[in-house]
């Protein structure tokens, strides 16, 4: 291969640097603003790159009182358990639907696909959850969104493209469906499962709407619900009354909330990234 010219390298470098700066700029701004004082924010018009006197007031305001820490715990548990449950259900269903010999699999698939086009609506969903007695339980955060039809379809088409001979030979060796799934299908599907796990985890991590609808007790709220309140309500943060001082500038709190919400995903992402491109492409092209 021909070595790129110095000029070419320089241009490429400049472009990459430019793009990187474009991506990094808002992040730095978010972090900078979260550490700023009222004066900094007002002077900079709401977006501070370098605070003159960085302060952690906004983070203190968020984490004080234990509401956010408890919500963080709830979110971690819901995300962890929810992702595992969703994976188990989706893998099981996708495997079943990928076997052509299963009677009625097409009909079930159509029903699943139907949910991609039409969702039941808020009221119907609420009534179902209520009748199942799930109101005010953590299960209400997981069960209504246990299987995503999109993930199901991706996984099913991946399973269908695995060489049938492998499974047939396993069957001749006396393996049942469960054994085939666990010993043969799953080890071959690591990439796509990692991707789907990431999809589920991110969805659970960010989900607030189910909590809003189904959980009346604020003590059970997951992190996004609480953070959302900081962000939304920050707009009109009412006076706390008396001689209290505002704990931190509204925008600083909002930005601190963004940092708190994004960091965990940022930490998980690099570990799954190598599977990520591979997995999506596999499912998509062969499907």
């Amino acid at each position, binding site marked *: 291969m021909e070595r790129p010219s110095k000029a070419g390298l320089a241009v490429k470098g400049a472009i990459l640097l430019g793009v990187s700066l474009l991506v990094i700029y808002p992040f730095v701004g978010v972090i900078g603003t979260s550490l700023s004082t009222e004066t900094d924010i007002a002077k900079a018009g709401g977006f501070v790159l370098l605070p003159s006197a960085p302060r952690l007031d906004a983070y203190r305001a968020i984490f004080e009182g234990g509401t956010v820490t408890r919500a963080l715990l709830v979110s971690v548990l819901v995300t962890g358990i929810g992702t595992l449950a969703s994976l188990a259900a989706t893998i099981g269903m996708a495997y079943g639907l990928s076997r052509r010999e299963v009677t009625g699999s097409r009909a079930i698939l159509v029903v699943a696909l139907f949910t991609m086009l039409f969702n039941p609506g808020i009221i119907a969903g609420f009534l179902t959850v209520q009748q199942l007695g799930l109101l005010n339980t953590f299960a209400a955060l997981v069960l209504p969104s246990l299987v995503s039809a999109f993930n199901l379809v991706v996984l099913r088409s991946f399973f269908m493209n695995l060489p049938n001979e492998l499974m047939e030979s396993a069957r001749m060796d006396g393996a049942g469906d469960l054994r085939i799934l666990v010993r043969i299908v799953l080890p071959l599907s690591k990439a796509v499962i990692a991707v789907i796990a990431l999809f589920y985890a991110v969805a659970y991590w960010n989900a607030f709407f189910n909590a809003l609808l189904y959980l009346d007790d*604020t003590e059970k709220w997951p992190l996004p619900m609480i953070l959302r309140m900081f962000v939304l309500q920050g707009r009109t943060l009412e006076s706390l009354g008396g001689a209290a001082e505002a704990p931190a500038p509204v925008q600083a709190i909002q930005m601190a909330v963004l940092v708190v919400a994004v960091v965990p995903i940022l930490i998980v992402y690099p570990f799954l990234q190598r599977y990520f491109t591979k997995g999506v492409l596999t499912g998509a092209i062969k499907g």
Partner: protein
Amino acid sequence: MNLSRRGFLGLAAGVAVTSLASACGGGAQAPATKAQGLTVKLPTYTPLASIPKPDLPGTAAGVPDAYFTYPKELFKAVQKPPMSGGQVKIAMKTFLPPPPGREQNAAWREMEKRLGGTADVMIVPTDDWPTKFSTLVAGGNLPDIFPYISTQGVNNLPAFAASQCADLTPFLSGDKVKEYPNLAALPEVFWKQGIIGGKLYGVPVPRNLVGGLGFYRHEMFAQAGVTDLAQITGLDRFAELLKELTRPQERRWAIVTATGGVFGLSIFTQLFGVPLEWRLDKASGKLTHAIETEEYRAALEYVIKLREAGVIYPGSEGFDTLKRKNEFNSGRAAITYDGLPAYLGPGNYLQTQKKIDPKADPRPLLPIGAKAVTFANNIAFSTNLLKKAGEARVKELLRVADFFAAPFGSEEFTLIQYGLAGTDHTRDDQGNPVLTDQGAKDITVPWKYIAAPTQAVYDPTSRDGVEHVHAALTKMIPQAVYDPTTGMFSPTAENKFESLYTMRNDKVTSIVAGRARLSELDQLVKDWRAQGGDKIRAEFEQALQQSNGPR
């Protein structure tokens, strides 16, 4: 996105509510789908005898009392606990981050002790309330006390109220309210907010009647030679002043606005004497809508000229609220429109601007010119409804509401606003409660939105600020114009309000922005009339005829 979700929910809730109403059958009143006048005898206004002496007294017209310091001696406003055991379920909207739960919240436990029962509070972010409300209605899960706001999406409010809510008329009308002394101390104007379909359903959470004309930077006005707003002789002079205040080279403009603010039009509709929604010609009983008036056209023309003169912060029509506040706070604009409640207290204009620049001197803008009025658009924060129940239960819930309406300076008010003495607040040498760190969190339970007394003006951090607000209210309340249809019901208005409002706001914004001509206002009025305006007018005129007494 948000709107369409609301629209959908409105539809869904409408269906749910209608079916619930019809399912209720015999017990419920016939749903009022027709126009309905104000025929209720409102609760008799009976001021409390024993309130602390104010530093600046209020008036019978509704100007509130004002206090520079908190009363040192607290008094008991509720003699015995309103509940005898049992539980009350309350849903409330909140603007604040969620509070610690009961176990970690001393104020909550004290509140329940004082109430004499368990208070389960379902806290819902304000923006999410319509969604949550729809599910509560659909699931038959309505709490005992819950707020109602007009964007909540009930299509037939009278039918909903008749089937689901306690009719408070027999409990509060006339002198009956005296059983609840703190509620009786609310003037009639507030109770009008609680009327649905000709009956009293709502307990109001009072505000100070007028929202005001926004705020101005007094020190900037003084630089331009205006040391007292009375020196501005008329609107022509005001326009000149706005031009003098504009100094683009110093990055300063006269007015900063935000999306939906129509370039600060709300300030100028009031200065030009536009009615609040409707104007009633008492002789003929005919209504004229604000946008049909000459005054409205004149106000629009004026704002267009201001925009063309460059005194409105360029691009600020695309700002969000925070950005607008930032620009005003940092002195890049001399005037902004916002409600009076955004002035005093932590995080609000006065304190924030003093922090940024000690010389900053923001004050409420006052009516200027001979024709100016002020809109009575800040009468109540919200109106809360009670779930339908037997007589004894309704009375118990009203006693609970009475508890939360305990006046400024009472033990109950102090608990609601500042939590438990010692744990949640201490009192400085003036007697002012100072929240502790714990207190700042504990008091975010939205107790103060369940019911409330008339709102005293109080801010221990700024005597000047209290004086400014009190002076502004003293000037503005006598000039206030009310919507003559308050307390009346028009089914078309109930269903079409949002779409007509959006249509109007979009068009008027385009006109001021220069994307449409002023002459298109005529077409807008025509469209508005055809799409429901005329029908609403006819319904309200009919309602006015049925109503008792002169308005």
